[in-house]
C-alpha cells in the first residue's frame, strides 16, 4: 500500500516535471544545426561518389550557375591584379616575395593554394569553369586538403606526405565535403592565409592557425567565445569579390562609421564600423586620442604586438646558405628551440620569433612591388615592396609593419632578382637536386628572361602591414610606449612627440639657468651665514 502511494507520488512528480522540462527548451534546441537554408546532403546531384575536384565543381554549377564566372573575376582565381595607379601587373603570378620568391616554374607546389584545379604551367585554362575549386573556401567538414605538388588538386588517393617522411595522408572524401558545404569560416580562409610561405604563421605574423579559435586577448573581434567574427565579417564579400586587399588598402579612411554594404566603401577597414573618431574622451583629454587618428592607423595602437602566441612568425629567410649540406654530405634540417625551421639545405637559414613589436612606417595604402625583371641596386638592401606615403600626406598614416628580411639570388650583370625553379621532382628543381645554376636556368627560361650565367645574393626586405590580431582596448599600446625616450616611433619622420623629442639647446639653456639660480642663492646664502657667524663670534 505504502509502496503504491510512493509510486503514485513519484509518477505524479515525473508527470509534473516532464512537461515543465518540455515547456522551457533552450534556444539552441530549436535552432537548426546549420545556418544555411539548404541541406546539401539532400540534393540528389551530390548523392554520388566524386572522382575529382572538377567533378564536384560541375555538380555545384548545376545550381550555382554563375558562381564559377564570378570566381574567375577574383584574385583568388587570376592571381593577378592590375594596379590602377601604375597600370603594372601585380599579384602572386607576377610579383616576387621574400619567402619562396616566385610562383613561376613552381606552380605545381604553389597552386595548392589556388582556388582552382590543375594550374601547373602556362597552359592552364583560365576559362574552364570546372577548374574552379569551390571546396577550398566552402568545405564545412575541415577535411578538405590540397598538398604541394598536386597543382591544386585535393588528395585523391592515400599517399606519403611530405615526400620521404613515411607519413601517410588519406584521400579526401569528396562526397562528404560536397554534401557539407558552408559559408567560409576562419579555418577555410586560414587553410591558405594562415599557412602562407609554406608553414603556420610563416608569412604574415598577424595570421596563423591560432585564429581558428582565438581567445579575446588575441583578437577582440574573432574571439571564439565572444563576438566570433569570421574573416568575411570584415572582408565582406559580394559576388565572390572579397573586400579588403593588400593591393588596395584603405590606409586612412576618414568620416563616420557607415552601414555595411555600401558599394563605394571598403568594409574591411576599422573605420568602416568605428568611424575615424572612435574614442569617447573626458574634458581632461580634450579629444587627444581622436586627434591621434589624424596621424596613426588604428592598428598602430590596437595591435601592440603581432604573432602573440607560441606559433610565432618568420623574421628572415637567407637563401644564400641553401644547398649547404650536413657533415655527412646529406641534406640537413635543423629546428630552433621552439621546433620551427632554423636551417634547411633546400632553403637556407631562417629566424623566427613571437610577441613582436612592429616596425612603424608612413603608409598611404599603396605598396609598390618589385616584379620579375625589375632592376635592383645590389649595393643596397632591395625593398621587395615599399610602403608609399609620407608625413602630412592626407591619405597616409603611420602603420605597423612586419618587416621580413633575407637574402635572395640575383643576376650581377642584368641587375635583377633571379627566378629559381625550386619545387618539383625533376633534375633542375633546387629542392631535389641542390644545384643553383640548374635551378636558375630552368626558372629564368620559364620566366622568359635572360640570365648572364652568374648569380650572387643580395639583402632584401619585405613589409607586411599588420592589421589582424586586434587586442582588447585594455591591451592597446600605452601613451608612454611612444611618448618616452624608448619610443616605438623613434626615427619615424614628420612627427613631434612630447616625451621623446626635445630641443637640446633649449634644455641646455633652461637647466643652466636653473642651476645658475640655485648656485647663486646658495652662494648668497652661504655668505650671509658666514657673516652672521663672524658677527656672533665677535659679539661673544
Amino acid at each position, binding site marked *: 500500500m505504502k509502496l503504491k502511494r510512493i509510486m503514485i507520488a513519484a509518477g505524479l512528480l515525473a508527470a509534473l516535471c516532464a512537461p515543465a522540462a518540455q515547456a522551457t527548451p533552450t534556444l539552441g534546441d530549436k535552432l537548426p544545426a546549420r545556418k544555411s537554408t539548404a541541406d546539401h546532403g539532400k540534393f540528389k546531384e551530390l548523392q554520388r561518389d566524386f572522382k575529382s575536384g572538377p567533378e564536384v565543381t560541375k555538380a555545384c554549377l548545376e545550381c550555382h550557375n554563375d558562381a564559377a564566372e564570378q570566381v574567375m573575376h577574383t584574385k583568388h582565381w587570376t592571381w593577378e591584379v592590375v594596379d590602377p595607379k601604375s597600370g603594372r601587373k601585380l599579384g602572386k603570378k607576377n610579383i616576387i616575395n621574400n619567402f619562396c620568391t616566385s610562383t613561376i616554374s613552381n606552380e605545381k607546389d604553389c597552386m595548392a593554394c589556388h582556388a582552382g584545379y590543375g594550374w601547373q604551367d602556362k597552359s592552364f585554362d583560365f576559362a574552364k569553369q570546372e577548374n574552379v575549386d569551390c571546396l577550398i573556401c566552402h568545405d564545412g567538414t575541415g577535411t578538405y586538403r590540397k598538398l604541394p605538388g598536386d597543382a591544386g588538386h585535393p588528395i585523391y588517393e592515400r599517399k606519403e606526405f611530405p615526400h620521404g617522411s613515411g607519413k601517410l595522408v588519406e584521400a579526401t572524401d569528396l562526397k562528404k565535403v560536397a554534401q557539407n558545404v558552408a559559408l567560409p569560416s576562419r579555418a577555410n580562409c586560414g587553410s591558405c592565409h594562415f599557412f602562407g610561405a609554406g608553414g603556420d604563421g610563416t608569412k604574415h605574423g598577424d595570421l596563423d592557425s591560432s585564429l581558428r579559435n582565438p581567445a579575446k586577448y588575441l583578437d577582440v573581434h574573432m574571439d571564439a567565445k565572444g563576438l566570433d567574427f569570421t574573416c568575411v565579417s570584415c572582408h565582406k564579400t559580394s559576388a565572390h569579390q572579397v573586400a579588403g586587399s593588400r593591393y588596395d588598402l584603405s590606409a586612412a579612411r576618414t568620416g563616420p562609421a557607415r552601414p555595411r554594404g555600401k558599394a563605394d566603401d571598403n568594409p574591411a577597414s576599422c573605420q568602416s564600423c568605428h568611424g575615424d573618431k572612435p574614442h569617447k574622451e573626458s574634458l*581632461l*583629454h*580634450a*579629444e*587627444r586620442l*581622436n*586627434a591621434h587618428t*589624424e596621424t596613426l592607423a588604428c592598428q598602430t595602437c590596437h595591435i601592440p604586438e603581432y604573432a602573440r602566441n607560441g606559433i610565432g612568425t618568420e623574421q628572415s629567410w637567407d637563401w644564400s646558405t641553401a644547398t649547404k649540406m650536413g657533415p655527412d654530405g646529406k641534406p640537413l634540417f635543423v629546428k630552433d628551440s621552439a621546433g620551427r625551421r632554423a636551417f634547411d639545405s633546400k632553403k637556407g637559414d631562417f629566424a623566427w620569433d613571437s610577441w613582436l613589436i612592429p616596425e612603424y612606417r608612413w603608409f598611404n595604402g599603396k605598396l609598390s612591388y618589385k616584379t620579375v625583371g625589375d632592376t635592383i641596386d645590389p649595393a643596397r638592401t632591395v625593398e621587395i615592396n615599399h610602403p608609399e606615403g609620407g608625413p602630412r600626406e592626407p591619405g597616409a598614416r603611420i602603420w605597423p609593419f612586419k618587416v621580413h628580411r633575407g637574402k635572395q639570388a640575383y643576376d650581377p650583370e642584368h641587375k635583377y632578382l633571379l627566378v629559381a625553379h625550386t619545387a618539383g621532382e625533376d633534375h633542375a628543381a633546387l629542392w631535389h637536386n641542390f644545384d643553383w645554376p640548374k635551378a636558375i636556368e630552368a626558372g629564368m627560361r620559364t620566366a622568359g628572361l635572360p640570365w648572364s650565367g652568374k648569380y650572387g645574393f643580395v639583402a632584401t626586405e619585405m613589409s607586411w602591414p599588420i592589421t589582424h590580431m586586434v587586442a582588447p582596448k585594455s591591451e592597446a599600446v*600605452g*601613451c*608612454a610606449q611612444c*611618448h*618616452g*625616450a624608448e619610443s616605438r616611433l623613434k626615427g619615424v619622420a614628420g612627427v*613631434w612627440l*612630447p*616625451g*621623446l*623629442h*626635445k*630641443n637640446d639647446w*633649449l*634644455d641646455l*639653456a*633652461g*637647466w643652466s*639657468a*636653473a642651476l645658475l*639660480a*640655485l648656485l*647663486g*642663492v646658495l652662494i*648668497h*646664502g652661504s*655668505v*650671509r651665514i658666514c*657673516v652672521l657667524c663672524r*658677527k656672533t663670534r665677535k659679539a661673544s
Partner: protein
Amino acid sequence: MNTPVRPGHIYLYKRYERFWHWSQAALIIFMLITGFEVHGSYENFGFRRAVEYHTLAAWTLLTLWAFTIFWQFTTGEWRQYIPTYKKVGAMVHYYAYGIFTGAPHPFQKTARKKHNPLQRLAYLALLSLVSPIIWGSGLFYLFYAYWKDFGIDRWLTLEAVALTHTAGAFMMLVFFIAHVYLTTTGHTPLAHIKTMITGWEEEETQH
C-alpha cells in the same frame, strides 16, 4: 571684514590672499613636477598620468585665477603690482651688500605697499611675460585636437608650442628658486614664511 589689530604687528595678507598664494604654490610645484615628466626629463607617474594630472592642475589653477582676478579688482589689491623705480637701486644695493653687513632693509612694508620695488618688478614680469608664455602655449598645447577646425595647423606646429611651453617652464623654475630663497631674507630666515601663513608681519625693529 574689519582689519584685526595686534600691537607691534601689521596685518599684511588677508585670508583669501593666503589661500590663493599657498594653493597656487602647490599647483605650480605640482605642474613643474608633472610638466617635466611630460617633457621626458624623468619618470614618476608615467606619461599618461602625468599628462592627466598636469591638465587637471591647469584647470584648477585657471579656476583659482578667475576668483583671484575678481578678488584683486574688488579689493583694489591689483595696485600692489604697479611698478615703481623708486628705491630699486637701494634694493639691489641691499641684496648685493647691505644684507651681509646687517644694514637696515631700505623698504618698510605696509598693508598698502606689501611688496618691495624689486618684488613689484619681478611679479609684474611674471604676470606680463612668463604667464602669457606659459598659458598661451599651454592652451594651444591642450587643445591641439581642435587646431584643424580653425586652420591653426596651417601656421603653427606642435614643436613650436611645446618648446615655448618648455621655455616658460624653465622661467618659472628659475623664479621659483629665487622666490623660495628670498623668503629667507626676513629678519629671521622663516619670518616671511610665517607672515605668509598667519598674515601677520612683525613690525621691523632696529637691531
